[in-house]
């Protein structure tokens, strides 16, 4: 009967403190797996990507090469990523310019000795993917997001033969 444990109050306090500490540890651990949410027009940027509508063509016969974009939709495109596939390798190079909604833009990609045209000429195929810029949720930090290649990527160049 002399065996005494900690008082009920201390046991409760310990239990609650333990739960809070474990919850905090799990929260910070899981947060590392979840990427930052980027929002555009108050929506997740991934959802806004689905509303992009554009045509893109590439004229490789000119030097410098000419890249045409027709933004037919209502979402301004912030940038374009050129994904070049060569053999088993792929490389992504950003254009560095975007296109407003309802406009057509032409871009000169530079002469054949420059990085992007050279990568295109060495590639088996080239896919253009639109990028969007949005705010990281809850902050004023601007971040870019690559839209989904499978649903929005446009094949603009394929080596013949």
């Amino acid at each position, binding site marked *: 009967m002399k065996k005494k444990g900690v008082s009920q109050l201390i046991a409760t306090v310990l239990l609650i403190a333990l739960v809070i500490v474990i919850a905090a540890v799990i929260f910070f651990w899981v947060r590392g797996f979840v990427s930052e949410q980027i929002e555009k027009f108050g929506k997740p940027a991934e959802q806004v990507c689905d509303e992009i509508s554009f045509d893109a063509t590439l004229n490789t*016969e000119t030097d410098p090469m000419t890249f045409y974009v027709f933004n037919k939709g209502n979402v301004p495109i912030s940038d374009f990523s050129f994904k070049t596939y060569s053999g088993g390798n792929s490389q992504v190079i950003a254009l560095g310019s975007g296109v407003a909604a309802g406009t057509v833009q032409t871009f000169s990609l530079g002469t054949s000795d420059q990085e992007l045209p050279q990568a295109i000429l060495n590639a088996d195929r080239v896919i253009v993917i639109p990028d969007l810029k949005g705010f990281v949720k809850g902050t004023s930090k601007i971040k870019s997001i690559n839209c989904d290649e499978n649903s929005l990527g446009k094949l603009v160049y394929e080596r013949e033969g």
Partner: protein
Amino acid sequence: MKYHKSIKNKKRAISELIAYVLLISLAISLSSVVFLWLKFYVQQGTVQTCPDGVSVIIKDYSCSQGAFTNTLNLTIQNKGLFTINGTVVFYETSFSNNENTLPTNRWESPNMLLNPSNYSAFSISYTGHVYKIAVLPFRIEKGKKVFCDKAVIMQKTSSESNCI
């Protein structure tokens, strides 16, 4: 026996009322967290889109040569189910054998009301020749211009039109 009973009576948990209050407040706070988290993913309608039944055709086009500038006369007919409020016309004035060129010159009609099956004629000044024409209709929805991407038409000009 008497001693045992007195020990048993001293074991007291929180009252039933407090237990219910704790349970309900926990359920409410958890559901609010889940609601706010999911709400962000199901927001709709911030980017206006055009209805699917919008459709336009180039009913007629011709080019007339002037002393300094030429004129592209374009008649656009609304073939869709909805009224449109204007069109953006893109036209290509530089010739290229490459099929991958897009018309880059842009002309936008003033806001108007083009009802289904009605048509409207426009005159656009240009220099040189017109090789390709694209038309992108738009609607005004909630005071904002909404481009109808699914109704875009693009065609090459023919020699009979006097454009090339």
